[in-house]
């Protein structure tokens, strides 16, 4: 194995520009003559827009233009779309209200876009915005997820009576109810999956530029998927035909899902740049990010688990109300349905499952995918109720899970998914050992002696990612295919460019993708460039999210490399004067079987482009191949996380003492990068469990709109992690990769809450389990114990 091949923890090539401050993030980009955009946002959660008077603002120094929803409508700019059609139980399509880029007639959440001021400097734009007077007709707001669909609530969209977007279900109700009717034990649990705000450290930004000479718009944007952005801006929003619209997502400072979606601000920058014939630049202030980045999670759930007398799970039924916010964001409808309900079997062999999801509009920011997108919500339900069932029936947490694990594969769940391969017991055993589970009782006693409460919590998670087989998701309502593309360009002297439809915003593709190519072609890793993020360079791609860049993006590269190898062998055959069938390719050399005649990859490349040694009509010159890879299945990473923590009952402060993660991601390309993904995911999951929550008050005001009020995990809130893997190679892509980007965030919240409830002896603690929440629960526990 070479020092830079598959499976090696190669240091990242892209680091050089980041550690020296030479990255190119969107806010670093400045275009000659650019003007600056500032968005006037609604201070009300729900109101009619009765009048906008910009007359004084238009006279302010430096103002170039002030645009509103009326201008959007006059220019026939289409609305922002939701690209996944979900049908309700009764077969009716989901009820989607219009989502204009600048509000028309009504505002529906605090932060909703009312007008844009474009001026020579940002300060001038902000100063001018203060001179705009808007007359609002305030309306009562529907803010609470659990009650938004109740009769009598304020109606947010005419298209959606009772603020209901859809009533969806999966599984079989009749057989599930029958299983519950004869269950020996039923465990019930009410859960809230707390609303989160993604908070990538780079705020969203956009620079729109118009070239009147070529009638072309260029949009620089903080996107995880520039081609999808171009598709939506062209086909649905109608800003320009695709071939006249270039979208560039350069270095992007984190996404976690929040930068998948096509937002109002980038749409307006692209549109306005053409309208005023000057570049238009916008960068979010952090408070704007809080107000208008798509939020995550926000489920209210009632769940029930049926057991037989031997502790075997015989059924699961779940009812969830999912908050989608004030408008449907680009993938919003898929998150609480096909990324949630179909994961409810977890790692367990459950014969029958029935899940209903009611999706509601509220006067809050739109909600969409955030790291894990539906799978953290599912895992939280499953791992909390399984834990509760184990405790209610007096069974050990680990052994109860093991007793119910799926043990033979492939395994068809009752909720569409069929798991291909896995070894859940192996991961559990490894995790128990690494976590020194045997020592827990002793450590609990030692903590108690100091007046502290120690708890251990499990999370045995599975997720479905490597999104996704196109026909399958199409049949479930997706408006797009979820294949990936790769073009391998070999240059005449043997250096290689990979043009990938994936996008890297922290995942290290410039290194990992190059490792794959280096390993296959036997060329130095420094001779390989990975090109991504520009619709003028890469023809088309679906972008990076859903843990798909390895399983789908790299599979496409692998397929293109197969084609390169086939053609290169033909060229080598001509050069070596042998038949193509007699050419072998190994370690970067093409040789004739059974002889010592060989040439290296670089020579083959040069020959391909000089075309001196073969007939250019019989064999085309050049060495460049493209592949589109459409996955045949989802991939199923799975594993066990064990959280061990200590609670100070005097303060409610939770200290995580040790974290053990054993994950099955199939084959690993770069273990260092995989671990980094797990670390980051765990940190976000711990954030959700202990400190993060987006709070709206009853009037729809976002109370947590800055880092003063929204608590982000910092270095001293987390321990170092023990991360290991087991491997059951994925059978559905040539590299055996499952994907690892979201697993940490999916696994971790229930591990934390299970640990806290273990320490306290309580049935439930809400997320985030802040010191106040934990302190209150600890007092109750002390009182309860004193009474016993």
């Amino acid at each position, binding site marked *: 194995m070479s020092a830079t091949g598959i499976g090696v*923890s190669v*240091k*990242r090539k*892209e*680091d*050089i*520009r*980041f*550690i*020296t*401050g*030479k*990255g190119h*993030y969107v*806010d*670093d980009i*400045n275009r000659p003559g650019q003007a600056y955009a500032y968005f006037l946002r609604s201070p009300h959660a729900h109101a009619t827009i009765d009048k906008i008077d910009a007359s004084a603002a238009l006279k302010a120094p430096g103002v170039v233009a002030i645009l509103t929803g009326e201008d959007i409508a006059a220019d026939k700019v289409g609305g922002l779309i939701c690209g996944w059609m979900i049908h309700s139980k009764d077969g009716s399509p989901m009820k989607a209200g219009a989502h204009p880029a600048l509000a028309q007639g009504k505002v529906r959440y605090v932060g909703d876009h009312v007008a844009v001021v474009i001026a020579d400097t940002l*300060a001038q734009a902000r100063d001018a915005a203060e001179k705009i007077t808007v007359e609002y007709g305030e309306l009562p707001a529907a803010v609470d997820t659990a009650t938004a669909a109740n009769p009598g609530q304020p109606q947010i969209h005419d298209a959606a009576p009772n603020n209901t977007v859809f009533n969806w279900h999966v599984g079989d109700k009749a057989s599930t109810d029958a299983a519950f009717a004869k269950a020996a034990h039923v465990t019930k649990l009410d859960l809230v999956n707390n609303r989160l705000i993604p*908070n*990538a*450290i*780079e*705020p969203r930004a956009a620079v729109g530029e118009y070239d009147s000479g070529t009638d072309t718009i260029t949009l620089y944007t903080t996107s995880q998927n520039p081609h999808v952005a171009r598709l939506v801006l062209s086909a649905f929003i109608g800003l320009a035909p695709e071939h006249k619209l270039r979208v560039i997502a350069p*270095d*992007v*400072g*984190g996404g*976690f899902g929040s930068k998948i979606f096509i937002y109002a601000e980038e749409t307006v920058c692209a549109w306005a740049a053409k309208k005023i014939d000057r570049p238009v630049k916008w*960068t979010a*202030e*952090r*408070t704007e990010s809080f107000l208008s980045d798509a939020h995550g999670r926000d489920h209210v759930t009632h769940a029930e688990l049926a057991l037989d007398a031997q502790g075997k799970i015989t059924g699961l039924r779940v009812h969830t109300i999912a908050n989608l916010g004030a408008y449907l964001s680009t993938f919003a409808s898929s998150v609480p349905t096909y990324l949630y309900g179909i994961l409810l079997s977890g790692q367990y062999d459950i014969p029958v499952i029935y899940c209903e999801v009611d999706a509601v509009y509220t006067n809050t920011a739109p909600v969409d995918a955030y790291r894990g997108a539906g799978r953290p919500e599912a895992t939280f339900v499953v791992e909390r109720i399984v834990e509760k069932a184990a405790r209610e029936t007096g069974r050990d947490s680990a052994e109860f899970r093991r007793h119910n694990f799926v043990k033979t594969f492939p395994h068809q769940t009752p909720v569409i998914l069929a798991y291909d391969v896995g070894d859940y017991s192996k991961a559990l055993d490894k995790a128990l050992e690494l976590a020194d589970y045997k020592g827990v009782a002793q450590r609990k006693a030692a903590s108690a002696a100091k007046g502290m409460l120690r708890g251990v919590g499990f999370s045995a998670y599975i997720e479905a990612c490597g999104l996704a087989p196109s026909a399958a998701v199409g049949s479930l309502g997706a408006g797009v295919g979820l294949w990936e593309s790769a073009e391998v360009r070999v240059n005449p002297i043997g250096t290689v460019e990979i043009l990938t439809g994936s996008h890297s*915003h*922290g*995942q*290290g593709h410039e290194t990992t993708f190059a490792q794959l190519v280096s390993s296959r072609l036997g060329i130095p890793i420094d001779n390989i460039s990975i090109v991504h993020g520009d619709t003028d360079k890469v023809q088309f791609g679906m972008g990076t999210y859903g843990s798909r860049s390895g399983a789908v993006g790299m599979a496409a590269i692998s397929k293109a490399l197969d084609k390169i190898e086939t053609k290169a062998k033909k060229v080598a055959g001509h050069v070596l004067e042998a038949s193509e069938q007699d050419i072998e390719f190994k370690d970067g050399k093409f040789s004739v079987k059974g002889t010592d005649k060989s040439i290296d990859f670089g020579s083959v490349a040069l020959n391909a482009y000089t075309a001196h040694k073969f007939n250019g009509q019989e064999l085309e010159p050049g060495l460049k191949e493209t592949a589109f890879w459409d996955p045949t299945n989802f991939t199923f990473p799975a594993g066990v996380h064990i959280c061990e923590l200590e609670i100070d009952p005097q303060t409610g402060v939770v200290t995580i003492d040790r974290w053990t993660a054993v994950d099955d991601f199939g084959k690993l390309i770069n273990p*260092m*990068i995989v*671990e*980094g993904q797990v*670390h*980051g*995911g*765990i*940190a*976000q999951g711990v954030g959700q469990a202990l400190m993060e929550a987006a709070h709206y008050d009853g009037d729809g005001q976002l109370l947590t709109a*800055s*880092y*003063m009020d929204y608590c*982000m995990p*910092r*270095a*001293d809130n*987390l321990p*170092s*992690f023990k991360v290991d893997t087991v491997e059951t190679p994925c059978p559905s892509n040539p590299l055996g990769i499952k994907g690892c980007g979201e697993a*940490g965030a999916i696994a971790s919240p229930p591990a934390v809450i299970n640990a806290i409830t273990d320490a306290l002896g309580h049935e439930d603690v809400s997320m985030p389990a802040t010191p106040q929440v934990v302190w209150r629960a600890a007092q109750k526990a002390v009182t309860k114990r004193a009474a016993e």
Partner: protein
Amino acid sequence: MVHVSMAVNGRPASADVDPRTLLVQFLRENLRLTGTHVGCDTSQCGACVVHVDGRAIKSCTILAASCDGAQVTTIEGLAANGKLHPMQQAFQDNHGLQCGFCTPGMIMAAVDLVNREGSNLDEAAIRHGLEGNICRCTGYHNIVRAVAQGAREMGAMSTAKAAE
């Protein structure tokens, strides 16, 4: 307008600016040194950390005018003679960054931490010392390892220098 004049990465830099101009804006917009980043509006994320007269400062929370006459070092000024600073190298060696956006501020804060507390930092001291820098990508595990290595290397360098 107010005239500000300072040295940035060893070079004189001056301009007439709106008095409201923050140091980070002066660096990014007047000097086009875009390595220093803005990540929040409440002085908490630390993406904007630079050194002013040898101490870490959040450049989003100080006016350019307040830095008149100061020596400012940004991430672009850390490497010397084409050679990475040991803290920069440590971040690459330990995979202490993913998207890179918090990284300049994190590195500058880490160098300052070592300058103030010495090169023999344990995990708790590093985690506590980075409380003013938020990273959303790494979960901090590898940042801690990077800072520990960078600290050791900085210590070894200054020991070697002292011996000369």
